[in-house]
């Protein structure tokens, strides 16, 4: 005899685990011996039992769970915000105050539930009842809701009115005190489920929490649960870890090395183009430029990747290798990169050409690879794909890095490059304001076409530029 059987048609909704836990706390509070101390609430002549003060609740939580007062206040606040306990003095403000302000428990029918979310129809009935009771004097946002619902569920609006009237008549059959309690309960329920604008909606679940797997908390811990936990912990232990002292050291080193090169941290010479409108910085650091800046050349000494990554550095390194008669290494590496990032249709062709040029015995630009890697690569060439040359490429890369690269850094070529590198002068700040360069918005990048175009294209470019300029202006 379970409720699950009843959910055949609709989706299986589970009560959120935090709500189940709160319910258990509430039930624990009801114990006549160990529970919260109850008082009576006096309203003129009616006496309504089962009221508690905020301080009693906080004290009970401290004793039951052995927690600090701050935590107990926070927990109590959560319980009040979710509507399990509601305040009697100031019902609009769902906050737990640790003084003698009165509170009361909410009836289980009105407990917050994800299994039984508050329905529009019920809210419409509540608003209609309130309308009757208060003779049309609803709060602003309630009026809006009311009109909205009238449009939304217009087809059952007659039922709403009928049911509202009947519910009020049914309530009349009860005792005075009970009627007041029921009204307070309903009001508290709707304050939590349809909060006024600006108040936090506790039932709002972000998109990531919709996963039913995470909401299915296991309350009864059986064998399966513990088995799964053990497996999870085993896998977690097997993960590779780096000591934080080591990785933080590396991090510090990296930052120390690169800080002078960072234009935001250390400023950039000649000047920041975004501020002074002077584009010298970009033109001096263009990919291909005759005299590189000093900072750039210094950066080539940091690691091999920097050198190869910079187009100018790459060219210089190639020049150096040609002098040393080991340029085929770099060419091989470049060819492998082309293969890796090239077109799918050209792969077989590429692999073949690389083999013919660099790997075949007696090839013109034969590269020196150890026998094991060579065997593996030759094996792979039979079924060529993008990554067949990976092992060989890595071998050659390491060779260059360990052998040629240090020699490059010690070579005269590099030293002359460093000596000839230019430090751009800082833009002079003109003394007289009217002599300073006027700031104006840069022309559209569409007009500034790159200058590496062949002369045949230049006329076309010029024509395009003028047309675009004409269109712009």
């Amino acid at each position, binding site marked *: *005899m379970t409720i699950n059987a009843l959910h055949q048609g609709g989706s299986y909704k589970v009560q959120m685990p935090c709500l189940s836990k709160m319910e258990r706390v509430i039930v624990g509070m009801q114990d006549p011996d160990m529970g919260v101390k109850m008082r009576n609430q006096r309203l003129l002549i009616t006496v309504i039992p*089962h009221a508690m003060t905020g301080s009693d609740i906080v004290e009970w939580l401290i004793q039951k769970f052995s927690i600090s007062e701050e935590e107990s206040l926070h927990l109590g606040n959560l319980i009040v915000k979710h509507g399990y306990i509601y305040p009697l003095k100031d019902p609009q403000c769902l906050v737990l105050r640790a003084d003698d302000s009165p509170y009361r428990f909410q009836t*289980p029918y009105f407990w917050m539930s994800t299994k039984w979310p508050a329905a529009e129809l019920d809210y419409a009935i509540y608003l209609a009842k309130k*309308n009757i009771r*208060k003779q049309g004097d609803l709060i602003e946002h309630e009026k809006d809701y009311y009109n909205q619902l009238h449009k939304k569920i217009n*087809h059952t609006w007659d039922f709403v009115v009928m049911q509202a009237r*009947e519910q009020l008549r049914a309530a009349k059959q009860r005792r*005075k*005190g009970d009627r007041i309690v029921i009204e307070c309960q309903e009001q508290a329920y709707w304050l939590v489920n349809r909060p006024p604008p600006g108040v936090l909606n506790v039932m709002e679940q972000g998109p990531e929490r919709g996963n039913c797997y995470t909401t299915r908390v296991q309350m009864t811990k059986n064998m399966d649960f513990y088995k799964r936990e053990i497996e999870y912990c085993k896998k977690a232990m097997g993960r590779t870890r780096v000591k934080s002292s080591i990785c933080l050291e590396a991090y510090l080193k990296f930052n120390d090395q690169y800080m002078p090169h960072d234009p935001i941290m250390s400023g950039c010479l000649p000047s920041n183009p975004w501020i002074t409108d002077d584009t010298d910085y970009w033109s001096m650091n263009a990919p291909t430029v005759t005299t590189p800046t000093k900072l750039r050349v210094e950066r080539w000494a940091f690691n091999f990747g920097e050198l190869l990554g910079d187009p100018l550095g790459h060219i210089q390194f190639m020049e150096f290798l040609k002098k040393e008669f080991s340029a085929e290494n770099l060419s091989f590496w470049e060819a492998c990169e082309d293969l890796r990032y090239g077109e799918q249709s050209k792969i077989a062709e590429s692999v073949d050409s690389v083999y013919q040029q660099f790997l075949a015995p007696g090839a013109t630009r034969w590269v020196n690879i150890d026998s094991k890697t060579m065997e593996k690569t030759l094996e792979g060439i039979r079924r060529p794909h993008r990554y067949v040359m990976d092992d060989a490429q890595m071998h050659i890369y390491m060779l260059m890095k360990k052998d040629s690269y240090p020699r490059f850094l010690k070579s005269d070529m590099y030293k002359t490059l460093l000596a000839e590198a230019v430090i751009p002068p800082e833009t002079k700040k003109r003394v007289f304001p009217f002599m300073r360069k006027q700031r104006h918005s840069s022309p559209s990048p569409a007009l500034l076409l790159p200058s590496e175009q062949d002369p045949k294209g230049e006329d076309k470019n010029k024509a395009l530029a003028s047309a675009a300029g004409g269109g712009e202006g």
Partner: protein
Amino acid sequence: MAKEECKALLDALNRVTACYRHMVLSVGGTADSQNLREELKQTRQKAHDLAVANRNKLTAALKDKNVSKEDKAEFERLWVIFSTCLEILETDMKRALELGLEFPLNVPKKHLIQTGMSGGTAGVAARAMSVQNMKYEAERNIDEVDLKDLEQEIHKVGEMMYEMEMKVNVPQWTVEAKQDPGAELKSTTSAGASSGGFVSIEERKGFCDISKLLAAIVFSAVLILAVILAVCVVKLS
């Protein structure tokens, strides 16, 4: 003719649904008791009977080819009201089952929630059953025994609703409400203004009733005494 009958039946079902919901509110609280569970059972059965009667009448009326256009529209409106009523009834029954399972009455360790309700729901149940006083005939552990019946009845209602949807073709969105927003305020019958304000007005009214009665009695007693005295004086002097 058929329209009036249908309306009356629907009103009755509406009344019973409202009372049932009112009673389910108290389950699990301090107003909960074996009596309440029995009241729930009886109300539920009455609701079921009314629902079946409603369904039969309305399906007969909707199937009748000789009704005029306005009558048909009216019956469709009543049908929509009826199906909504059944939905609410089904939800309340499901919740009653769940709450009944969570709060069994005869287990001493499980305490009921102290909600502040002290009175009983006998009046509400009497209103639902349209009787003067409720008779309680069930055994001590009706709260457990009843749950099985409740589960079966929920299935029955579910099936009935499914059948209704399949067999009767009334598109809900074509029905327009007769009442405008705020229509409930126009009713000056008993549901109206009397329960304005929470505490003070109601209390004073109740208070006044009793005191008025007392005052009237005292006044009339004094009057009668004065008349007797006057007569005696006249007679003796």
